[in-house]
């Protein structure tokens, strides 16, 4: 039985001539788990929003959408509200009320359910999601993962037949994200709810999906099982192949044929079966990162706590960052990584220890001197820096030198965006515009707080390119991040932040090669088979070298 039947749907927004959706046809069956993927702006959000009338954007539209055989527009709003659940990307903004219990009850209240029905539905959902313990809490005290779980629960409370999720985990840290996706999977498996989800983080959903839909430029390019999708993308040489889970990429890049493994477990099995007699690892020059030159940042035994009798957040941080390198700090959520950055840029005062920036004690910098041509920080959300009506005006706020502004805009690749409103930029563009603002203070040390949050693989790549060009200009970059894959690929030195201190720091290869859990998927897959393979490329290189030996 089909749930949604979309036939030849085309759509364009009133402000732009380009089609956001171009002849999309798709049938979604009851109980199916469908993943939508594609670059930012490929039209997946627009498509998903078309599946619920109140969320459908304004614009020119052609084609037809049937919900259970009835044109969607003819299904009453109240019925849609109950039957089609929609969870959005914004963790904070989609929560309406101030208390957990009220958020759960919001849907039923709006639909005018009576007290008895509401009570049992709310109680049931609270138990199913295990949120009965925080039933009475203020929403503002919840973590990001908890908030997103609450949003899911407050949709599920109306017992929807279809659950639509639009990039639900893009603002969550990896642990919370896979928890969330596991819950979605559980709902699909235990309740038979049809799931349509768009995701960047394919590792966690691909193995369980019935179908993957790849979109590009408003069209569906691939619509097949996850296994076939990987192969088709590889054969077409599609850019989206880079976004596939590590085992899929490694498999096709190495052997190119057949059914790929989807999980790390299956990936290991594949490698072990390929080399039953063990494999030799490609010898690689593993050297210290030693660029020579000066030290940009040196921290010695830095201790800090927020309240006088509170817990220590920084417990003797030692760090040394050479000038001109990209230093990444990884570590769990809420471990105090952001506090570390605040200590580096002098916003908080450690009660013990010493921080030197370019060889000068941070306490000796005068007020304002530190942020003028020395240190600058990019906040987690680039929008915190936007105060004007156009990107050009944003840059002009920072400097009066028109030449410098043009040069910086070119460096960041935002020359075409200068007349745009900063809030109309995509996530990646906004990040670049914010970096441009940061760079206009002429910093020698740039701090980045979770810079790849919410970025898709294409944006990450061009962002890494930008970091590289900063390094070429002699700018030192320090980032804190959850993004293990990104740090493994692009950082020069990776430090592990745990329990208030930087425990180990090393080159990514040695760092992640030495970890067994907190490491990249490629490393987990090849551990014990190839030594020190951290990225998918490493795995492929090892594989090919060993296949050569076998022959």
């Amino acid at each position, binding site marked *: 039985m089909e749930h949604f039947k979309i036939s030849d749907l085309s759509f364009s927004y009133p402000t732009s001539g380009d089609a956001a959706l171009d002849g999309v046809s798709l049938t979604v069956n009851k109980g199916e788990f469908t993943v939508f993927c594609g670059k930012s702006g490929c039209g997946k959000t627009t498509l998903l929003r078309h599946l619920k009338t109140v969320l459908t954007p304004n614009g020119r539209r052609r084609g037809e959408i049937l919900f259970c055989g009835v044109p969607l527009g003819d299904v009453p709003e109240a019925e849609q*509200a109950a039957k089609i659940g929609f969870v959005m990307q914004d963790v904070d903004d989609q929560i309406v009320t101030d208390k957990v219990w009220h958020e759960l009850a919001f849907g039923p209240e709006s639909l005018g359910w*009576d007290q008895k029905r509401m009570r049992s539905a709310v109680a049931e959902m609270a138990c199913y999601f295990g949120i009965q313990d925080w039933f009475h809490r203020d929403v503002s005290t919840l973590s990001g993962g908890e908030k997103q779980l609450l949003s899911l629960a407050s949709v599920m409370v109306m017992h929807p037949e279809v659950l639509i999720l639009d990039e639900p985990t893009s603002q969550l840290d990896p642990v919370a994200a896979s928890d969330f996706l596991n819950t979605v999977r559980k709902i699909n498996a235990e309740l038979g709810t049809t799931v349509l989800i768009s995701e960047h983080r394919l590792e966690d959903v691909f193995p369980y999906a019935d179908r993957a839909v790849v979109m590009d430029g408003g069209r569906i390019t691939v619509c097949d099982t996850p296994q076939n999708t990987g192969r088709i993308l590889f054969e077409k040489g599609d850019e989206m192949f880079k976004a596939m889970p590590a085992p899929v990429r490694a498999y096709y890049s190495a052997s190119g044929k057949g059914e790929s493994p989807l999980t790390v477990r299956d990936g290991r099995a594949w490698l072990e079966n390929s080399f039953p007699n063990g494999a030799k690892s490609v010898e690689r020059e593993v050297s210290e990162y030693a660029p020579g030159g000066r030290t940009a940042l040196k921290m010695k035994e830095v201790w800090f706590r927020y309240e006088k009798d509170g817990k220590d957040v920084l417990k003797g941080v030692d760090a040394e960052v050479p000038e001109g390198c990209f230093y990444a700090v990884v570590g769990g959520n809420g471990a105090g990584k952001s506090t570390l950055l605040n200590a580096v840029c002098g916003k908080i005062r450690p009660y013990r220890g010493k921080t030197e920036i370019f060889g000068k004690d941070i306490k000796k910098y005068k007020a304002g001197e530190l942020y003028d041509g020395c240190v600058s920080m990019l906040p987690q959300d680039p929008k915190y820096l936007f105060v004007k009506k156009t990107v050009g005006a944003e840059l002009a706020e920072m400097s009066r030198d028109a030449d410098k502004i043009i040069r910086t805009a070119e460096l960041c690749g935002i020359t075409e965006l200068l007349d745009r409103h900063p809030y109309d930029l995509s996530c990646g563009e906004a990040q670049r515009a914010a970096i441009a603002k940061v760079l206009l203070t002429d910093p020698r040390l740039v701090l980045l707080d979770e810079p790849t949050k919410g970025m898709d693989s294409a944006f990450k790549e061009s962002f890494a390119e930008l970091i590289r060009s900063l390094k070429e200009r002699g700018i030192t970059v320090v980032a804190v991040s959850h993004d293990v894959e990104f740090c493994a690929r692009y950082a020069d030195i990776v430090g592990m932040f745990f329990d208030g201190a930087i425990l180990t720091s090393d080159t990514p290869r040695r760092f992640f090669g030495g970890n067994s859990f907190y490491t990249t998927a490629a490393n987990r897959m090849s551990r014990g088979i190839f030594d020190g393979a951290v990225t998918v490329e490493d795995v492929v290189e090892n594989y090919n070298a060993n296949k050569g030996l076998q022959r």
Partner: protein
Amino acid sequence: MTHDAFSKCHPSVNFVFFILAICFGAVFQHPAYIAAGIVSSGTYYVLLNGKKSIKSFLRLLLLFCFISFINPVFNTRGDTVLFKLFSRPYTLEALIYGASIASVFVITMLWFGCWNKVMTGEKITCLFGGVAPALSILLVTVFRMVPEMIRTAKRIVSARLSIGKGGAEKLSERARSGASALGALASLSLEGSVTTGDSMRARGYGTGKRTSFSVYGFRRRDGALMILVAALAAAVIAFAFRGATRAVFLPERYFAPLSGANAAGLAAYCILLLTPTVMHIREVISWNISKSAI
């Protein structure tokens, strides 16, 4: 949070009690009634706020003195002239009258202080939910947004600081940068509000008549308490109209005697005002007994 038995009652009981307590407290000027008001509101305030009450009490004491001493400046009636101020008599009678006004003020403030602790936003919206659904949802969303915005505002200020904005010494520069930060906050919130609006509509807001989910059940105990409060209040009002609370300060002091029926009025008033305190203490005692039994 401290556990308070009265706070756990149905919001309507809390609401009715406080309205009555504040109204009575703001009107009665008979010294006995003032004493009852101060003692009961003060005790309950301490039970709710603990050590923090001392600071509030000191502030109230200051205001009490100020209001008491200011009255004779405007009011020159009375025979016992203490001294002359700007060639106007400053009389003892007016001072005593001032003290009674100040006491009434203190009682009102104390009851409102208790109100702040007991009548949470959650309870207010629960009370409004049925009568004013739109206002109730508006309040709920504002309660939701304020802590979020405070957090965001701090982040914006901090983010701007690290690109060298907002840390200037000059006041005008700082005010200007503050306005920019506030503007950024407004932009972020307004953009975000579209998602909130969508999220409301996606869950059926505006499709029909709303009902309101209540986490507070109206139990039999609440009903009994409500009847008790209403009966006591009726008694107090009846005695008041019979003149039991009559107090005249000027030109001649006269207070209604506390004998006979009038004593019953005062007793009703005391019982009414002490209800939350008694409930609180009773719970503490029974808790301690059951704890020692373990």
